[in-house]
């Protein structure tokens, strides 16, 4: 069973952007929105193979909160990891929450 890992302080993430955290040998993209909700996704963009999802622009499409890959601009749901453009593609998501000013990810 994976455990909760503290990855950074809340102020380390500019609202509406992401950072990449190293958890074990795993790269996890952690996003903070301006309502101080946090989301964690696998940082690897499945279309380019580059570890860059943390650098994407966040927003919403038809109410679904998404990050756009900075490489080829596909959108991934922040809550499910589902790619909106390709039903067959999904990236792994991880539970994330804030405790005080610490951001934690379960991986």
């Amino acid at each position: 069973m994976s455990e909760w890992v503290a990855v950074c302080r809340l102020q380390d993430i500019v609202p509406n952007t992401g950072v990449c955290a190293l958890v074990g040998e795993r790269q996890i993209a952690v996003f903070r929105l301006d309502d101080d909700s946090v989301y964690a996704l696998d940082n690897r963009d499945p279309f380019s193979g580059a570890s860059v999802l943390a650098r994407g622009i966040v927003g919403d499409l038809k109410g679904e909160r998404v990050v756009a890959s900075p490489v080829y601009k596909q959108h991934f749901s922040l809550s499910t990891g589902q790619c909106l453009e390709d039903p067959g593609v999904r990236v792994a998501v991880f539970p994330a929450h804030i405790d005080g000013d610490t951001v934690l990810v379960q991986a």
Partner: protein
Amino acid sequence: MKLVVIGNGMVGQRFLEQLVARANGGSTQVTVLCEEPRPAYDRVQLTSFFSGKSAADLNVVPAGFFEQPGMTLRLDDKAVAIDRERKLVRSAGGAELPYDKLVLATGSNPFVPPLPGKDRPDCFVYRTIEDLEAIRAAAARARVGTVVGGGLLGLEAAKALKDLGLETHVVEFAPRLMTVQLDDSGGRLLRRKIEALGVTVHASKNTKEIAGGAERRHKMVFVDGTALETDLIVFSAGIRPRDDLARAAGLAVGERGGIVVDNHCRTSDLDIYAVGECALWNGRIYGLVAPGYQMAEVAARHVAGEGDAQFLGADMSTKLKLMGVDVASIGDAHGATLNALNYIYTDESAGVYKKLVISGDRKYLLGAILVGDADEYGSLLQMALNPLPLPEHPEDLILPAREGAKKGLGVDLLPASAAICTCNGVSKGGICDAIAAGCASLGALKKATKASTTCGGCGPLVKQILDCELKKRGVDVKNHLCEHFDYSRQELFHLIRVGKLMSFDAVIAQHGRGRGCDICKPALASIFASCWNEMILKPRHAPLQDTNDHFLANLQKNGTYSIIPRVPGGEIAPEKLIVLGEVARKYGLYTKITGAQRIDLLGARVEQLPLIWKDLVDAGFESGHAYGKALRTVKSCVGNTWCRYGVQDSVAMAIGIENRYRGIRSPHKMKVAVSGCTRECAEAQGKDVGVIATEKGWNLYVCGNGGVKPRHADLLATDLDDRTLIRFIDRFLMFYIRTGDRLQRTATWLENLEGGIDYARKVVCEDSLGIGAELEADMQKLVDTYECEWKKAIDDPEIMKRFRHFVNSDRPDANVVFVTERGQIRPARPEEREEAAATT
């Protein structure tokens, strides 16, 4: 069937295209004889050959056209005889070409008055590209040039001589210019305008002879005893149909020339057709391309078996721009119809003359003359052709708009049969069909129907029909940015500027909905930068930026970035070149020279970017904005400092332009180039802004593009001094920045701009909207507030915090793997990456 076509001009080519469109199967063998060394080209735009277009630009033959099965083109081979008995054509090259049907599209010859001395050297006509090449060569050794003939073509030729830098004269036999199209008042105004541009007009002059001059090469002696000295002469005193082949073959010809044709464009030999300027229909020669096209279509349909195809005369209305002066003539411009009534409006201070000719019962428009402002041409022409009932106050059609007065006509009133583009024979119905088939932009319509692609005069009308039809269909004409904003980029620009909005949150709260997305966020970030020029990585702007802007570098496929420092004008001192090499070696970067005269350093990890830029900034480099929708580079040739042919210092101008506009954000990237002479080594005509040196200053081209859809730039203004050049570029760029769509390059922007280059010219050069000073001031503000983003960034610890791959570790991204190729790094392919992972 064997078909022979003599002549491959615009009309001959149109015939072939119409025939191919109708031919079923490849059973027809077509042979085309063309005496010129190149296939059909746009003779209407011939003058643009001198303002930068090449012979290739003027080509009108679709790619691969003559490679179609059954199609043979014999260039440089002139027809010399028609043997009607044996039904074959003999060519100068010795070929004997049998025919079942023969089409004569031999066009016309310029008329050269039979004057003593007309055959002296450096006396030319103005018809073929070869004529123009000869004129250009002669102009190089001349100072004064004279055109004989003040008609439509003569004035075109005068513009050409002026473009070649000659002191230009026009000699006209009649008392006024453009006798056929204009009346005395219109002709007088046109003359005044043309003289103001530096062309001297000699009206009512009958040339007696051309002799040797004292000061210049020739002396033209007039019947009234006066004389004019000139170095070269261009004869443009009308045309004569080329009917010699037909005449020798015994076909019926007119008393004053022209091959007699019937309503099917057949000659007196029913197997021989004649089309275009060589054909005489109902006692008339049509010296314009549009009627020629109509004849071509009729003949093609008739040859293809459509027996009912008929030519029943054509409209001779014309609209053109002579040296920047709009001139139009519609229908019965001289009021020759019995009881016709005139309305006349003159504004001598603005240089505008307009005349309406209406029927005696005041119901219909018969004709019109417009000089100085021909914006109403399209609607007036429709009104005269269809004919549509006149409004209650016909004068409103030509008077400056009064409050409440509705101008022009509603396009909705036009019948489907209304000819909209007379050059290409496109009716309103044809345009509506194309819209129904899915064309939803002016660009798409032009491509699908060819409407507005020859003279462009009907462009505004086509756009009105498009808008009207889309509206009727309930089609969303909106170009909303994305689901978060019901506005176009242009509208948002306006809202942000007028509302002084400075953050995404403020704009989406007031004018949008939701949280935004990767479309609207970078678009608004760009607008904020264009309006307020705040540092793009300020905390409120940083989350809006695409990754390239966010890290001030260009993301590559493996997650690393490339760095392109600014090298203004492509000029770089050896010391700085060495710095680039040393930095690349220090950080193990791949280096490549870009197409834009800069040096690209690739393979930098995100955490290396600040270190690399620290070294570069210390050595005096600035951000090159290769990552931004902004000015990229200003390419230049070495100019007159070094080059034997250069006429201006293109490098200094390029550096000046690059330093002026660096960092300015725009709807899309912008590329600029400056060439030091017309050889155009900097390829300025393929750029958003192109500057080409002339003897007197600079020619300014705009809206060119390379890339997916290359577009030759349009000439916006000529012979500008340094200051005016910069002022015009200021206005042009700011106008584009304000009105462009998201990710719309200037080339597409112009193609969708109602009124096209003429409208852009009015706004930029004539300040028709009265916003010139405002555009300049806005641009100056951006210039004054420029700061190097990298210099700012490396001094800001908060920004620097973001330049690391892991928020909780200093380790680099293990997923970035390079291999060596040709002595430099490159990203590992997936299988190489796995291999590397397995061995570590």
